[in-house]
């Protein structure tokens, strides 16, 4: 029973994001691959294949490009309607474009052959169906991965080390400074509430930042002077939609690997910037070479990288490097304010 309830947990069927470079290139590649198959099927001998390819490409490419442009332009509208209606709309666009281009094709001009038109429409519908089916399968294949990623996120995030140390710090406040202890427990409760909700939908960057601030407040409680944080926040980036827990685990790592191993004060720098339609996050912390055996960093990075890929495909990137004694993480992703 339990297994089933997890399986039912997948994302609802949805059209892919037609503005995404990964989606566009997948459509281009798969449609052209199908066209090659058609050409192969219709050639009786190998010499004929090249001619067939040219013929099909001539009628296919203009239609394909127009369809992609229309889908790109209409993606916001398409996302607002239900999946089945959206699918019908996509088919209408594909068939309409195919029919509109038909009179301009050389074959059709000579003989306005209805059978040729029907053949073209049939091929277009078949290709659109195949591509839609592919994206549907991909969506289903990835949705358990997203719930899996969410579970992993729950387990990997918020180290037990942090929880127990924070509880210990709060206990130390209760007798001397009950007000501060109350505030700390409230922060802790809110932090865990955020971590435990369904983490699959994108959230506003503003909320992710405030989560990080709550987390850092708690760390400040026990680390005091040793923890210094410098935020550089571009106000125009605050509306951006980002995967939840995209920053908090990185901030937690920065404390764990960058601040705790040092006796003196250490600085964490977080900068968030919007450049046109790209969002840039950068986080740096002191690098302690001797403490690299401490676990957890790579797991968190792999987890975030995976979720960025699920949400933004090839349009997001995560890079790390060590420069001037500091560990740097840079994330780039599309700036989006609506789904």
């Amino acid at each position, binding site marked *: 029973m339990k297994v089933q309830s997890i399986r039912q947990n997948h994302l609802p069927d949805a059209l892919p994001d037609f503005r995404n470079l990964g989606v566009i290139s997948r459509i281009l590649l798969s449609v052209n691959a199908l066209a090659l198959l058609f050409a192969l099927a219709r050639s009786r001998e190998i010499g004929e294949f090249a001619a067939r390819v040219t013929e099909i490409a001539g009628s296919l490419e203009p239609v394909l490009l127009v369809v992609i442009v229309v889908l790109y332009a209409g993606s916001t509208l398409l996302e607002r309607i239900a999946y089945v209606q959206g699918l019908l709309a996509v088919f209408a666009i594909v068939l309409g474009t195919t029919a509109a281009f038909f009179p301009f094709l050389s074959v059709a001009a000579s003989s306005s052959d209805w059978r040729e038109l029907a053949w073209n429409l049939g091929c277009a519908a078949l290709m659109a169906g195949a591509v839609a089916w592919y994206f549907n399968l991909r969506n289903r294949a990835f949705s358990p991965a997203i719930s899996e990623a969410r579970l992993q996120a729950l387990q990997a995030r918020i180290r*037990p080390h942090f929880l*127990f*140390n924070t509880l*210990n710090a709060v206990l130390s406040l209760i007798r001397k400074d009950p007000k501060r202890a109350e505030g700390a427990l409230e922060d802790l409760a809110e932090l865990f509430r955020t971590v435990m909700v369904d983490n699959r939908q994108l959230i506003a960057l503003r909320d992710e930042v405030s989560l990080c601030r709550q987390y850092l407040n708690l760390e400040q409680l*026990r*680390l005091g002077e040793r923890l210094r944080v410098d935020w550089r926040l571009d106000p125009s980036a605050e509306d951006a939609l980002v995967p939840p827990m995209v920053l908090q685990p990185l901030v937690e790592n920065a404390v764990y690997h960058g601040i705790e191993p040092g006796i003196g004060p250490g600085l964490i720098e977080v900068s968030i910037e919007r450049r046109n339609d790209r969002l840039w996050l950068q986080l740096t912390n002191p690098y302690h070479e001797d403490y690299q055996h401490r676990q957890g960093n790579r797991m968190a990075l792999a987890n975030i990288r995976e979720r960025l890929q699920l949400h933004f495909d090839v349009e997001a990137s995560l890079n790390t490097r060590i420069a001037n004694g500091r560990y740097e993480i840079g994330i780039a992703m599309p700036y989006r304010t609506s789904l």
Partner: protein
Amino acid sequence: MKPVRVVIVDDEQPARSRLRELLEDCQAELPHVLAGEAANGAEGLQVVAASEADVVLVDIHMPEMSGIEFARHLQVLEHPPAVIFVTAHDQYAVEAFEVNALDYLTKPVRAARLLAALKKAANGARLTRGVLDSIDPAPRRHFSVAERGRVMLVPVSEVIYLRAELKYLTLRTRDREYLVEESLTQIEQEFGTVFVRIHRNCLVARRWIRGFERGAETEGEVGWSVILEGLDERLPVSRRQWAQVKSLAG
């Protein structure tokens, strides 16, 4: 009974103040005095030596020197205090404590557990170096030398060579020599590639080797010797070790 002298070593101020409160709660059942506090291992060693502590409460997870390395250095003192480890969450260390039947406390610490551990420690339960080595197989960052009742720390990176002489080892840095009670074989195992054996009785730090020269006479034969960075002294390489050492000559 004389009150038990307790020292707290933890890098987090709230954690120290929490332990102080809990100690206060145990005062009626186990008379004690707080003999000192420190925020890291190196400070802790001085505080312990200066305060004649009976028991040290030490956090495992500290910057620069872990609680376990701290406890290893304590053992060079003539009367090392009993050690009670405190940890928030360290699966590996906790397993090692269980295996070796060592007392430890988990954060947040309970007053009842603290009291039980203090009573046991006051009754003279002591650590041994062997047990500590098995808990933390990671190499130390310092060698420790007892001098006039204090613990001197020598960073491993400053050690140029170690030579066995009767019961002790001579540990040479650029500035001076120290006598330590350790075994060359164990050091060789602990630090892996940091030191290279050039003679039955001598380990040299790779990073301080500047080169080799021929001409030193060992065991009646002319052999090779090591030229060291910053020291005029030459160390003879035994014929048996030369086969391995010469690969460093490059």
